[in-house]
């Protein structure tokens, strides 16, 4: 019994795994590449290459229905992200910090929107809005489904996601830091503003980013609760696909893809800059 014990995999297994990994990679990315390539297709036939062109991007951006859908999507995403960041953080703080009547029940149900199927959520919200409108209308004003109901629905599910992410951050928060701030003459609000919030900010930002992505992505719920003139971009894409895939849709999808990649890269760059900044001072 001598020599090195062979703990690694055999050469054959290793090669097999490498091929498999490439296959998975291809499975994930080939459709994306096809989409992007055909968005620059000069031909109006989706599956036949007719030369390179930006033509479909131009057409998509000249199409009023599409630009309106992009506008709606952006407004809904921004509003629901900001609102759910504030409310989700508040809920997370309340759950992590205070004991109050119904805390346990709330703690268990706040994550419900994450687990229940989109379609259930959509039907639920639609029924809710119908009942709420009936009630409000009895006082005079008339409400209908529109951009505000879409935004409200997105807030409804985004709060849960923000809450989960912020809660995780709060669980590892050292509360003596808050005591130290109080000891150094900070009031309750100043302590939150100067110590608690800056320290949980990475969690709040991550939750916000998640909310933004989910909102830009949502089809099912938005389709149910939107009214005339408040179609979001994914809903528009979904409904026009029934009329067949057009190069225009490829162009829009590529734009959405680019936007979400930019979003992710942007947040990564932000994190890296912060990390390297603190490393730099360490060297000094």
């Amino acid at each position: 019994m001598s020599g090195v014990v062979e703990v690694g995999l055999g050469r054959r297994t290793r090669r097999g795994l490498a091929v498999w990994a490439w296959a998975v990679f291809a499975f994930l990315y080939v459709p994306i590449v096809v989409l992007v390539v055909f968005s620059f297709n000069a031909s109006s036939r989706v599956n036949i290459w007719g030369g390179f062109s930006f033509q479909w991007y131009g057409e998509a951006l000249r199409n009023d229905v599409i630009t309106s859908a992009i506008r709606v999507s952006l407004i809904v995403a921004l509003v629901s992200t900001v609102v759910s960041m504030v409310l989700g953080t508040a809920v997370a703080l309340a759950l992590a910090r205070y004991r109050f009547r119904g805390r346990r029940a709330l703690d268990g149900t706040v994550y419900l929107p994450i687990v229940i199927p989109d379609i259930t959520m959509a039907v639920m919200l639609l029924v809710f809005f119908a009942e709420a409108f009936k009630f409000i209308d009895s006082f005079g004003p008339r409400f209908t489904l529109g951009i505000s109901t879409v935004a409200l629905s997105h807030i409804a599910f985004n709060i849960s996601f923000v809450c989960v992410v912020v809660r995780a951050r709060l669980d590892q928060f050292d509360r003596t830091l808050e005591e130290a701030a109080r000891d150094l003459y900070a009031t309750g609000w100043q302590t939150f503003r100067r110590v608690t919030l800056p320290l949980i900010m990475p969690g709040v930002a991550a939750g916000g980013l998640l909310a933004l992505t989910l909102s830009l992505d949502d089809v099912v719920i938005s389709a149910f609760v939107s009214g005339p003139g408040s179609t979001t971009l994914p809903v528009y894409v979904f409904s026009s696909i029934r009329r067949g895939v057009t190069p225009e849709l490829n162009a829009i999808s590529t734009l959405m893809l680019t936007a979400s990649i930019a979003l992710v890269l942007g947040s990564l760059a932000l994190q890296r800059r912060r990390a390297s900044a603190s490393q730099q001072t360490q060297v000094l």
Partner: protein
Amino acid sequence: MTDPVAAVEIEGVTKRFGEVVAVDNIDLAIGDGEFFALLGPSGCGKTTTLRMIAGLDLPTEGSLRIFGEEVGMAPPDRRPVNTVFQAYALFPHMTVRQNIEFGLRMRGIKNPELSQRVAEATGMVRLAGMEERRPDQLSGGQQQRVALARALVNQPKVLLLDEPLGALDLKLRQEMQQELKALQREVGITFVFVTHDQEEALAMSERIGVMSEGRLLQVGTPREIYDRPASRFVADFIGRTNILEASVESASTVRLDNGALIEAETSTPAGSRVAVSLRPERVRLQPHGTTAAEGSSLDGEVRDITYLGHAVVYEVAAGPVSIEVRVEGEVGEPFAAGDEVTVAWDRGAAAVVAD
């Protein structure tokens, strides 16, 4: 205390957490400019007492005054005290300077006073040149200094320190003990510090309050606490000691349970059961049969010898009791295991403690 106004005055303070009584009816006065230690094992209520002075916990009952002003129920930002926390609790997202400035900014102090006071505090704890670093780029000792500067820059009337040296290694700890003492003399502020380390308490403080199970057992100078412990717990907790069961014969003699009569001053009435505390380093070993001119002695047999380098510890069996004798500064070992010896001590070395 003869001081007219105590820096901290605690009167009948009790703190309950639900069913648990953390602090049980404490009375304590800490003088202006004093270096006071609250000493006790973990869970004895010393930290809770400190937190009540800071305002981080509120007393369930009783009154708490700082320089005569009742603050028992005041929030921490309304008290003229600052705290050095156990793990320092430095704000990780702020630089050293921002940490130190924090208290001043919260009270609305502006430049040029702000930067002048920060510079002063930074210099006092020898942190000049490190103002722009973040806490995670500092060593444990440096973090400790930042925590000190962050508290002292506010010129509190009382500085509270919660196990301030607990996180440091032994060598640094001894250095910081000296520095803290010097710093306290320099600023002249009352320091109240919590520790479970009796050596630290003895070395640093002017007076010590020993706590156990929520009660304040004894308050006194290190010498009083060490030489005249008020109870068996205090005698046992502070340093090493031999506890001998006994009963009182008269105001100046007690009879040990093995029958020996020894000299010891006591105010406990004759016939009471007591314990006698004999410090290992206050007793001598003598050849068997020699008696001291004054003081008391016990005959026994050497059971065991432990060599510690700077001292030799003999375990002597005197009848049913075992006595630890610590001999320092002696070359060689004049006695061997099995030798018949006499354990002797001077009048006053034996302290009678109540049960």
